[in-house]
């Protein structure tokens, strides 16, 4: 076989050159271009249909086929604003704020699992203390303290604080002024001073 290569050096060079000419642009395209085309044939028929219907290539084709000038005239009908309703969340005044019995918090459960919260509106800001536990370690109580601008709705301050000792998930059980009483699952009591933004030894 090697003898063949020795007898035909030009053919060898041409072969390598052909590889370079053909392969390099293909690799280059793959590295810098679009992801590989989806292969939906591997999926069950019902999922294949769903994937094809939701393929962004098809959606973009719809967008690109649209007329360049948009019709901005108003729709003849649409949803109308309904009257406001009150929440089913239980609320109770506590200190200078309100305790709300909801675990809702804008955190993934892997980070934080909420039990309840305390809120206060003060000086153009909303102060919220979410109480609960670390999502990956339920024995570690955790509070999330946020200061939200009531006008811009932006979070302008706050912190995420573990309880000084592990006592399971904590809930806000009472408040005196801005000092919150938090009770752990095992009955341990903690005090959090909203003004100082830290745990304190006892209510002032």
């Amino acid at each position, binding site marked *: *076989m090697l003898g063949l*290569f020795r*007898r*035909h050096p*030009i*053919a*060898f*060079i041409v072969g390598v050159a*052909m*590889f370079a000419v053909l*392969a390099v642009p293909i*690799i280059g395209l*793959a590295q810098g271009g679009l*992801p*590989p085309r*989806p292969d939906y044939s*591997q999926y069950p028929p*019902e999922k294949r249909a769903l*994937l094809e219907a939701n393929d*962004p290539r098809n*959606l973009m084709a*719809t*967008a*690109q086929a649209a007329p*360049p000038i*948009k*019709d901005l005239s108003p729709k*003849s*009908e*649409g949803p*109308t*604003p309904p009257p*406001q*309703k*009150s*929440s089913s*969340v239980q609320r109770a005044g506590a200190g200078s704020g309100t305790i*709300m019995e*909801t*675990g*809702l*918090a*804008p955190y*993934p*459960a*892997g980070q934080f699992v909420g039990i309840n*919260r305390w809120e206060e509106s003060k000086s153009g800001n*909303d102060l919220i203390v979410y109480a609960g536990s670390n*999502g*990956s370690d339920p024995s570690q109580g955790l509070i*999330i*303290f946020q200061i*939200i601008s*009531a006008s811009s*709705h*932006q*979070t302008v301050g*706050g*912190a*995420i604080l573990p309880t000084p000792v592990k006592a399971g998930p904590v809930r806000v059980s009472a408040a005196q002024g801005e000092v919150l009483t938090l009770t752990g699952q095992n009955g341990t009591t903690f005090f959090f001073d909203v003004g100082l933004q830290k745990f304190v030894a006892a209510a002032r």
Partner: protein
Amino acid sequence: MLDRFRPKSFWAGVKRRRTGEAAVVMIASLLAAAWVTQTLGGQTYAAPTPPSATISRYMSTVDGGSPPNVTGRMYDIGCNDGRNRINGLEVMSFGQPDFVSPDYGADIFGTGAPFESIYTIKYAVSRYLHGYWDCSPTGVFLTLAIGVNNGGSKVNNPHGAAWADMVNQLNNFIASPPSWASQERVVGAIDAEAGYAATGPSSTRAWADGYTGTATPFYNAGDCPGCPQPGSTMLPIPGTPLQNGWYQDDIWYMSWGNIGALAVPEIYLEDGTSAREWEQLSLWALRYHNSAIGYQGSATEHDACLTPSNVQYCQTNHLNNTRDQGWSQLWDAENGDPGTASSTGSLHWSTDWSWTN
């Protein structure tokens, strides 16, 4: 010396043989070069450039303004997204499901956790869609996934059905004249997390079953807590126990197993753990449900991590994946196994959670 006495047909044969040999050498060289490149260069195709990311939002407003003159916050957000040519999948999470008789709805994020009925949310989303239509250039397309998480006690089948009905009505609204369907559509979403559902997965599955039946899918933007990573032992259905009575099978059902389910999983951890967990779930699905999962993209929380109260926490817990890192980690994880490598082609989208709205 003897050569000159050989017949012409002999030389023609030699010529034919040499031409054949040259062709063999050429082809062998081409193949050898390809083999050397593959062997020394490892993977021939590097990961592609991640798609441009959208912003997904923990919604703390449903301010749709008052017709006919006041645009409202939702219109403004839609208009800004349109002006910024936001193109792809965007999730809006309206908090946790709730029911205040006789209306289904959700307790939204932010101060007061107010209950907003499905009618209020529908109106708010319609205002967002209007803003996007008015301000976006032609040629972009938004898939808006509106959803809830699976926290609280009102996660159930009727809520899923009511949510699906709202999604259908919004798509009908989009299609009504003048149609905006060339640039917008609405689908469902759920942030299904085992940690939110302390009573187990059955209510979350019921929500999905209630939703299914609509013409549009729902996207699971949840997590895979404690899921094993590639190389771990694969347990048969229902798979590995996770937390709160959830198993791998439940995460699979919410992400793929339900007929209407698709997924843009959370890829938060900077070391790639999240991506590897979802990859393992897909391998598990391939083995025990005969189909890998066609993940549609990735979700990160880089923007949420920039919020003042979160900065230190995200840094300490290494949750600060950028949008591109999250997407690339999921792509790499899927590409790392022949069983799921071809699923990388359906990783269309990248989105990043934000609290700003």
